[in-house]
């Protein structure tokens, strides 16, 4: 009974067990790496990426009702909403909407707070830029995400 | 601030009206309902443990209550170390879960120090609180629970409360030369940053 462990030790059974694991993993099928710009990960539908302001697809009018709830919900106070009462329709209309994404932590609280379907955190995760203008305006956010296209 | 609402420092022996919840485990499993504006109020904690302490220390035990199934004692500063000692040795509260403080700048006794204790044998959790003035020292419990060492250091670091008897009371999270005690209510969240920015970068504010 006590011989077996000694024999196992002499014949390096414990080490060989480990060696066999690493050896078997050399099969190229096991490779888990994604070659990022060429292979892209599948982004989940609920992914919280760069914010986007949705527009009515038919009329291209913004869905934002300038309620300011997103600005109130933001823990970092990154969102600024400027609104103006339209004299004709007597409705509040958004005139400027900006977010400082450099400090955004993508918690999704603004998205939760939005009473319409306007503000949404999109699937865009590639927003590294060469400039520091991280304060995104309404125009940029309404255009939505622009997936980076690598040429050549 | 339950003490403010109660505001009865003498704390007479509360009559046993309602059997207290045995432990924190007995959380009220009520159906979800919107919290009433008044909210639950602390009930007197009537159990052998506080009763024995109260009979022993008398009015030094200012309060023994239960709030949402969680028990706590409010104790005078002078006896708190003895109370903690007795809790550890006679009532098996062998695990000092946490030690922290709360700052109430408007009160006379500005700081409320909270020891959260747990007993493995009784599977019970309780809090011991004491209130001290600004600048008053608090007794250190490192000799009772070595776990309190860093917690007291952190408490000193954040509130400036001095624990007498602590072996090595230094700042722990902040650098040694830090100005002020950040978790005091009169310490603005931006002031350190602004002072630094004004001195080093020559701009008004870093925000």
């Amino acid at each position, binding site marked *: 009974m006590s011989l077996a462990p000694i024999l196992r030790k002499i014949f390096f059974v*414990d080490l060989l*067990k*480990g060696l066999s*694991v690493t050896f078997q993993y050399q099969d190229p099928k096991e490779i*888990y790496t994604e070659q990022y710009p060429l292979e892209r990960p599948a*982004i989940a*539908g*609920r*992914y*919280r990426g760069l914010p986007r302001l949705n527009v009515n697809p038919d009329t291209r009018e913004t869905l934002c009702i300038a309620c300011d709830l997103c600005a109130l*919900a*933001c*823990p970092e106070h990154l969102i600024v909403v400027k609104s103006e009462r339209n004299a004709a329709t007597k409705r509040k209309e958004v005139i400027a909407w900006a977010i400082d994404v450099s400090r955004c*932590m993508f*918690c*999704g*609280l603004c998205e939760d707070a939005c009473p319409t379907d306007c503000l949404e955190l999109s699937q865009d995760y590639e927003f590294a830029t060469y400039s520091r203008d991280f304060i995104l305006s309404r125009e940029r956010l309404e255009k939505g995400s622009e997936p980076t296209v690598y040429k050549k | *601030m*339950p003490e*403010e*609402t109660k505001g009865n420092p003498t704390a007479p022996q509360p009559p046993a009206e309602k059997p207290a919840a045995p*432990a*924190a*485990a007995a*959380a*009220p499993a*009520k159906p*979800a*309902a*919107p*919290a*009433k*504006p008044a*909210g639950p109020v*602390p009930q007197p904690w009537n159990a052998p443990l506080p009763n024995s302490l109260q009979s022993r220390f008398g009015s030094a035990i200012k309060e023994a209550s239960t*709030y*949402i199934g*969680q028990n706590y004692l409010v104790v005078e500063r002078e006896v708190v170390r003895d109370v903690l000692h007795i809790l550890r040795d006679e009532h098996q509260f062998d695990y*000092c*879960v*946490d030690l*922290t403080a709360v700052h109430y700048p408007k009160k006379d006794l500005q700081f409320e120090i*909270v020891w*959260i204790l747990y007993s*493995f044998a009784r*599977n019970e959790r309780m*809090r011991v609180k004491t209130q001290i003035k600004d600048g008053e020292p608090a007794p250190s419990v490192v000799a009772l629970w*070595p*776990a309190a*060492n*860093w*917690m007291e250091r952190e408490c000193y670091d954040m509130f400036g409360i001095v624990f007498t008897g602590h072996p090595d009371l230094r700042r*722990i*999270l902040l*650098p*040694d030369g830090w100005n002020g005690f*950040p*978790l005091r209510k009169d*310490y603005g*969240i931006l002031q350190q940053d602004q002072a630094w920015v004004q001195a080093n970068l020559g701009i008004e504010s870093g925000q």
Partner: protein
Amino acid sequence: MTQPASTSPNTGDRTFLDSTEMVLNMGPQHPSTHGVLRVILKLDGEKVLGTECVIGYLHRGVEKIAENRTYAMFTPYVDRMDYVASVSNGLGYCLAIEKLLNTEAPLRAQYIRVIMTELNRLASHMVWLGTHALDIGAMTPLFYTFRDREEILKIFEKYCGARLTTHAFRIGGCIYEAYEGMEQEILKYCDFLEPKIDEYEQLLTTNRIWLERTKGVGVINGEDCIALGVTGPVLRASGVKWDLRKAQPYSSYEKFDFEIPTGPNGDTYDRYMVRIAEMRQSVRIIRQAVAGLPEGPIMAKIPKVLKPPVGEVYVSIEAPKGELGYFVVSDGTTQPYRVRVRPPSFVNLQALDKMVRGQLVADVVAVIGTLDIVLGEVDR
């Protein structure tokens, strides 16, 4: 504070070579201090005579931030303390505020919370195993565990939209309903994971080098653990069968059948075995929770603007690293008056000195790994 001998200015030609003792400044930039921990070691040759931890390099003032945010706004911040187990942090905070509001999440939300938290426990233990093995010199388990953790992160991403700092739960329940096919995916993952855990064990458990490096290293007994406030797997490996999920169940943990693994000796090997066993138990809990996932609402009826009544509560949960507690004081306004976090890593790290005194430099690394600290949580 002890200064590294080589940096003290006025010692002239006296260097550390002149004495038998030497001061080694390990960190804050060191491969195996798991972040920015700085440990000042006093050495005699390679033997450790004493340690001093210098922490705070990652201090962000989370508790101060909490006083300046509303209850709901503070939820994403707790994810950033123990960023390896952000779901657990979120769960603890949400439970604390729910307690303060004297309400409870619906049953379905509780089950979803259990599933997510246990998945997160698996992920956290995987990060621990990989980095711990890497500290001891075995490079490969890191890649296997990170590969398997990736699947968990994908489930997180599908469930709540983020991988690491998840912000998965909200006060009063969950805001995200289980996505389509989540149950099957999680069950499939459980089936996938169990052989993988065997594989990690095949690489390490019987390996003679691993045994030598971990057995009898960093021994701490149960009494010392309790005195030092050490909780979690470290406490259990010292033979104290205590798990908050059993001792004071929260979030329906009392409905699940699982065991608390313990170890006899309280050394690094036992802690390794306890965590491996805990991974298996987590899989077991996940299976039960997915099988018994009830229908119903996922959000309790709580007001839009949270104004808990005046009072204070302490609620703690069993995070992967130990007891994670939140002490919340409410003054009846929308912002917490005081939030105190009882971080398991911070308290556990205190035991480092006791565990490494008299051992070798290499053991310091092993013990830091086995304590499973996350500096984001130590420093907050």
